[in-house]
């Protein structure tokens, strides 16, 4: 109940950048795969608890014209208020490489500005999107409004279901390995986002050719 009240009261004072974000959506923003703008993202978190854990880093790349636009990639490290021993590793990275970190609020502002009305693509998208939504909640924002595609579903759709591959593990590592993608940059948010983007390009190409899937039907696979 307390949370509910907090949300209601803050809504009146939502900043300009949220309004810009919200207003960018219109019914027919994305017509087809070729012209649609996708933001492929990955987060690094302190753990798997939606309530206790926090996002350490967001990495994302943009797909436009069906090409990964490195020039428009996104990478932000978030300052942590509390020390959590699980985050020692990433803190270590941050300290050693003298990374610039920002507050959660600053991260939200930067990320929403970058994300706009793009279609979100992520591997096990529910986790990343929920973590981001939880972060939004903490600062009194509504949830993300973007359409979401999950590369796990896309990958599954390319597979023929048989008794042999039912137990297949659908981790990004596994799929990258199957697709012979270079996994050397795994486990950094940006690196994972790039691999996810490649998986996305490959799976959608397969689906487009074999099943005649279009952007509209892609959400239903």
């Amino acid at each position, binding site marked *: 109940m307390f949370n509910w009240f907090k949300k209601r009261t803050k809504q009146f004072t939502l900043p300009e950048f949220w309004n810009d974000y919200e207003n960018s959506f219109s019914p027919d923003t994305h017509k087809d795969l070729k012209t649609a703008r996708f933001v492929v993202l990955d987060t690094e978190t302190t753990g798997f608890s939606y309530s206790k854990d926090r996002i350490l880093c967001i990495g994302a790349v943009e797909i436009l014209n069906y090409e990964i636009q*490195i*020039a428009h990639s996104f*990478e932000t490290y978030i300052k942590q208020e509390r020390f959590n021993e699980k985050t020692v590793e990433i803190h270590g990275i941050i300290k050693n*490489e003298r990374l610039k970190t920002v507050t959660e609020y600053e991260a939200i502002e930067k990320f929403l500005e970058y994300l706009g009305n793009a279609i979100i693509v992520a591997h096990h998208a529910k986790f990343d999107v929920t973590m981001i939504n939880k972060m939004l909640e903490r600062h009194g924002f509504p949830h993300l409004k973007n359409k979401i595609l999950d590369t796990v579903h896309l990958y599954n759709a390319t597979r023929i279901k048989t008794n042999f591959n039912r137990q297949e593990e659908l981790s990004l590592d596994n799929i990258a390995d199957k697709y012979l993608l270079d996994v050397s*940059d795994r486990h*950094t948010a*940006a*690196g994972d986002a*790039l691999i996810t983007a490649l998986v996305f390009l490959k799976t959608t190409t397969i689906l487009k050719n074999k099943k005649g899937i279009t952007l509209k039907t892609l959400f239903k696979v």
Partner: protein
Amino acid sequence: MKNTIAERIADFLKRFPPFDLLRKSQLLEISKQVKITYMEKGQVIYHQNDTLHNHFYIIHKGAVSLLKALESNKNEVLDKFDEGDVFGLRPLFAKENYAITAKTAEECILYAIPIDIFRPMAEKNKSIGNYLIESFASNTENPFTKEHHVQFFSDAEIILNPTDNHFELQPVNYIKKIVTAKPSSKIKTIAKTMSKKNIGSIIIEDDGKPIGIVTDKDIRNKVATGLHTISEPVTNIMVSPVLCYPKNITIAQAQITMLKHRIGHLCITEDGTPNTKIIGLASEHDMIVMKGTNPSVLMKAIKRSNTTKDLKRIREKIMVLLNGYIMQNIPLTHTNKIIFELNDATIKRVIERCLVKMKQDPPVSFAWMSLGSQGRKEQLLHTDQDNAIIFENVPEDKLEDTRAYFLKLAKKVNKRLNTIGFDYCPADMMAKNPNWCLSLDEWKAQFTKWTTNTGNDELLLCNIFFDFDISYGDSRLTNALANHVLDITKNNTIFIAKLAANALSNASPLGFFRQFLVEPNGEHKDQFDLKKRALMPIVDAGRVLALSYQIKNINNTAERFEKLADIFPQNKELYLGCSYAFKAILKFRTKHGLINNDNGRFIKLEELTKEEKMKLKRCFKTISHVQEFIKIRFNISTLL
């Protein structure tokens, strides 16, 4: 801001040329602008005649075919690229539409790099410029022409000038306004002219062509001594013929030529022979003024050496010189000529000294012939000595005594050459072998035998002995033999066809999918045999073509092809391509030989850079073209 992805892309790019030549900051700048595309097998990246993209590509994963559309609606695969290969760059520099189609041969991940960010870096960085010129060449037969250079960099800011540190490899400066006299002039008149103009020599010309030269020395020795009177025509004292060279002769070559012939002047004519017009005069004095020492110092040292030990030491210095030339990327033609002259002088000096040691003059005139690579003037590193002796015909009863003298001489020479660093020939193809110490008539008979009843052994011998060149002695003998060879091969189509078939018998350097074919077993297992698979095919091709077109007195493979290009302009591109490929491979071999301190024959593939592999593959393409050409030209399919 941290950019993990750009750093990873930079890590990938820096493994491949030309990106390995960029600074880290530049790499990162490029990496930040890359676009990544995924393509299935069989997708077209760009079509022939398409307008240019704003970027070029490097293959991150997969393979790409470059295709040329043929009239028959079919495509010919020109080349296949794989991971790390760059394509689609040349048209962006040339600013012309795509001339070929690029299509994925496998599923691909491509990095597209915007040209706008790369071009300024390439144009400012000399080594990238050079690299690109070479790689662009992969679509042409003979890449290294000046036209290409200008075409790719219209600003023409980058000029290959690797000779900065090698003064002696620059072309000679010659005097263009020279004083000449007619053959009918009197000695007194020309002496007056020389005094008036304060010059030490004067060329005697007729119709613009040089027919002789008179120097202060001639006047001193032949006139002042009273041998000739000053009213005699100048033709009585002039030195004739004049040694002529083309204008691009290097200082080093001019210097050693002068030392060799003990003269102080070289006449520069339009084509380097006395049959064309004079365009200038190069004098020793002018060159000394211009500085420049190394090869000429070595040449002097060779001439003055009195022990084999000296020569061995000098030869080590020659190798240092060679190393410098190769490492500084001096054009091989120049390097080759200088090293040849030094080797040649070394051989001459050894023979001179051995003749003195014989304490008895040769019974008849003779010539020392160098065979194989030294005969073709292609010997850069220490390789085996292949040589033979030819001597004047003598009556039958004197033959064996005469041979005995020359065998004794040959034994001395072979032994000393070995000490200096020219290893003994394992097949005993040396002058000390009685089989290869023959009179002119015996040699003629030998060559006739080889060319009339030709089996595999004979072909092998022909390949070695046909490339003979005189190193010392009476050139009338070697000339007579060369004429004989041309006579007996002139209409001998069977022999030529066998030789051609033999030229094709060497295994091809590349497998079907552009991988290097390595040795399947033995000491050099999994290494690439550069001599057998790359050099020999092209040398053999040059020999059979030269022989079949009766080209005389040119043994050098590159020069053979250049001559062929001259005679047959319709095949110019192919022949010049061969000439270039040969030089490139030889240089490559020399470089590797110097690095590994061996003869450079066997190459460990993993030691090659991408750039080197690319260069070699391009040369191999030329080899397969010329082999194809020979197959058709000599109608080989019926013989194989």
